[in-house]
């Protein structure tokens, strides 16, 4: 039975090609000079260089976390290159037309809509920021967005154009010493997106960043900062891929969301980093810190579809600081072959009547290990706070593992917490029923898995929901004998 399943879920990684561009890549190694080089390359002000160097000091004194339910050989941080950029980016292209066509073809192949005309023609209503290794190569629809007062640009550019916002908010949600990888990111972060939505503005289109690792032996350390000012609203999407390579590559990002009074941020991720091959060789180590602070009446919604990476360590979290703030976490994590995922969320209830919802769907196949790890904390001030958590695991085959590690802490008698977890399998009976009704096995597994994930998919913006569905199918597809 297990072998039978295996063949349905062998995955084809369609984003695994390499783009042939000439890049400027730092040799592997990490020291203060590397940090100065990165900072200098981006022409950063002195305060930011100092900020980076301070983070580097902090990082050197920290220990790599080992509590997660994942196992991998120790990372040699001196064997990673911390900066790589296509040479053609040296002259900073001013518009899409000036961008190296080879780069543009990469995104065409990945199905990412870069040309504004195509978007306007109704393919999708999305503005894109494109990050290729350590630099942002293009940001679309900037004019249209600026009409609404929305700032959407690479963070390296925001440092120059909006230093007051960057200075005020960067590190305010995820402090430098928050954790090992966050500290590393602070020291060596390359690029990423910066978003500011002014008071009362509803962002006229979806914003999206597409991250691509291309160069060998490089790490990607992007940093995203989104500030939703009072009463504003934005929906942000994030996608990521990397070529198939035999060695493991490190991705250690930091995402900070600041959601001021009455504002709302909806943050969706489709994470499809290269997961390694069917023998467990290669793949991305995805060690990411994502966190939001929600002020009074604010709402944050994290939705993630995680199908890629060899090892995932990621807990998009909400600090519900203001009264009536709402936090949501919807997650689908699929692991196959030798993938390992330890992912979940933290909901820290501080304000009165704060509410959080956690819906987590883990699917384990092959020889993979998939863990949900979550924290729900009701502080003594969290009067009338509520949490509902539902965490379901689906096991496909008997060589994989599905794990649930919820931490539930309550210090307020009027706070209500409900947590439920279940485990199930795609049973032989279900498969037989489908087959007996003429449905082929591959389709049957995909149907069952899609049904299992429905609650999360419905939270994704339309374009992404389709992509996510397809992605799951790809991970489960292409392999029926």
């Amino acid at each position, binding site marked *: 039975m297990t072998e039978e399943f295996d063949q349905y879920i062998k995955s084809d990684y369609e984003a695994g090609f390499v783009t042939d561009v000439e890049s400027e890549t730092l040799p592997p190694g990490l020291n203060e000079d590397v940090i100065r080089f990165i900072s200098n390359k981006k022409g950063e002000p002195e305060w930011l260089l100092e900020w980076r160097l301070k983070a580097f000091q902090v990082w050197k004194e920290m220990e790599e976390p*080992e*509590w997660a*339910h994942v196992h991998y050989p120790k990372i040699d941080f001196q064997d990673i290159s911390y900066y790589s950029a296509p040479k053609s980016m040296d002259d900073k292209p001013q518009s899409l037309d000036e961008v190296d066509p080879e780069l543009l073809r990469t995104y065409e192949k990945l199905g990412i809509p870069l040309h504004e005309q195509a978007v306007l023609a109704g393919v999708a209503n999305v503005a894109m920021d494109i990050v290729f290794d350590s630099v942002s190569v293009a940001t679309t629809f900037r004019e249209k967005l600026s009409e609404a007062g929305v700032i959407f640009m690479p963070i390296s550019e925001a440092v120059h154009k909006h230093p007051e916002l960057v200075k005020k908010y960067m590190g305010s949600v995820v402090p430098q010493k928050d954790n090992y990888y966050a500290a590393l990111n602070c020291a060596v972060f390359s690029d990423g997106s910066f978003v500011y939505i002014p008071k009362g503005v509803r962002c006229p289109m979806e914003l999206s960043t597409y991250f691509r690792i291309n160069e060998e032996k490089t790490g990607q350390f992007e940093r995203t900062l989104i500030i939703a000012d009072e009463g504003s609203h934005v929906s942000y999407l994030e996608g990521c891929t990397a070529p198939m390579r035999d060695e493991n590559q490190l991705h250690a990002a930091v995402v900070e969301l600041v959601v001021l009074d009455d504002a709302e941020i909806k943050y969706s991720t489709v994470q499809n980093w290269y997961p390694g091959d069917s023998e467990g060789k290669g793949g991305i180590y995805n060690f990411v810190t994502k966190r939001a602070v929600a002020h009074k009446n604010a709402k944050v919604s994290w939705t993630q579809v995680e199908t890629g990476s060899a090892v995932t360590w990621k807990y998009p979290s909400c600090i519900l600081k203001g009264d009536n703030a709402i936090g949501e976490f919807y997650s689908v994590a699929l692991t196959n072959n030798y993938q390992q995922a330890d992912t979940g969320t933290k909901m820290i209830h501080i304000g009165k009547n704060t509410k959080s919802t956690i819906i987590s769907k883990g699917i384990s196949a092959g020889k993979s290990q998939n863990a949900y790890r979550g924290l729900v904390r*009701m502080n*003594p001030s969290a009067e009338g706070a509520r949490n509902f958590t539902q965490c379901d*695991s689906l*096991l*496909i*085959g*008997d*060589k*994989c*593992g*599905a*794990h*649930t*590690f*919820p*931490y*539930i*802490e*309550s*210090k*307020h*008698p*009027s*706070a*209500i*917490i*409900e*947590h*439920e*977890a*279940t*485990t*199930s*399998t795609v*049973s032989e009976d279900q498969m037989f029923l489908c087959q007996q009704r003429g449905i082929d096995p591959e389709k049957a597994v995909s149907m069952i898995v899609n049904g299992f994930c429905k609650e999360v998919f419905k939270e994704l913006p339309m374009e992404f929901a389709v992509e996510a569905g397809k992605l799951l199918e790809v991970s489960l597809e292409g392999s029926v004998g």
Partner: protein
Amino acid sequence: MTEASNAIVSPFTQSALDFVKSLEVSGDFGEVRESGMAAFESLPFPTRKTEDWKYTSLHALTTQDYNRPADNFDLDNASELFEVSGLDAYQLVFINGVFVSELSDEISEAGVSAVPLSVASDAQRALFKQHVGNIAETRRNLFTALNNATVEEGVLLHVEKNVQLKKPIQVINITSAQQQTSSAFARCLVVLEQQAEATLIEQFVSTAEEQNILLNQVTEINIGDGAKLNHYRLHTEDESSLHFGGVYVDLNRDSQFESYQIALGGKIKRLDVVVNHNQAGSHCEMKGVYLPKHNQHVDIHSYIEHIAANCTTDETYRGIMADQSKAVFNGRIHIHPDAQKTLANLSNKNLLLSNKAQINSKPELEIYADDVRCAHGVTVAQLDDKACFYLQSRGISRQEAEIMLSFAFINELLESIPVDALRQKLRPLLAQQFTSNESLTQHILDEEIGVCSEGAL
């Protein structure tokens, strides 16, 4: 999780080592003691960063020496502390870990050995030696390692094949207040052979004064093929008590383990319950209630290891935290790769009665087999306003309504205890946890109208 090496040699650790060295070597248990000692010395002293001790601080142990308890107990009124009226059981009584023959029964049932080690025959000691330390693993718990290192006195309960113990065995561990901070150790080993049946009631009581004594007790239980143990573990010591307990159970083919644990709070009260489903068809049913109040702390860690296929676990814990008390519940269910067709369920419900009370609950599932049905559910809430109003609208005072509803929260578990005498002993004991005002508990304790009084109608 890697631990930093044992940087803190706490006074507790030091006095424990001294204690072990002072033990009279009776020879036959040397093996388990030595391996326990080795484990104890190699395990780091738990800190808040030690996952299994995340919410329970052992700081209290790092400030004082621990001595052997003084023999200061007055036997005359001792039985008041533990007597369960109407319960016909064999009693074995230990005070601060020392066997008290004056208060104990001599048990002579065919096919049954139920003796304290200090009076056991050579054959019985040999049997004890054969089993002791086989189940109580030391890698997870410093205190179990220490208990292994101190094996000397304790209970052996052995029931032969096809034998049903006629009466429950009541093992009573009393601690008495000490001048000097002290520690005492106790052990219990239960071996049920094929198709045997027994009921074991472990009672932990104390005098009512400030205790100043730490009790470290471990019970190991091996339930043979088709055998069944009903197990009760009742912790009703004074709130100043320190208790570190462990229950380790091996389940063989088609065996059954039914356990009820009641824990009032203590200064630190920690209980680890480890159940190994070693062979197919075994069943474990665990029910527990924890009721800390004042500044008390209760920590229950359960670990259910599904190693064999076709086994079932049904686990229900309820907790009510009052005042500034704190409770920790960790319920781990681990399904090993061959444990197909496992059914495992865990329910943990908690009620916080005050702004200063705390609960930390961590249900865990670790699953390596696919054809299994596992679930856990945890809730934390306060009393239901609607229910409270309903009672008030019938003239019942808010205060009494709250007590009735709090009691109702644990009543279901209490009512499922099959031994009438125990239930009747526990009802008032638990009701008193909510108030000392008898007029407020009269209705929940009224024999004629309570739900337990089947005969009344």
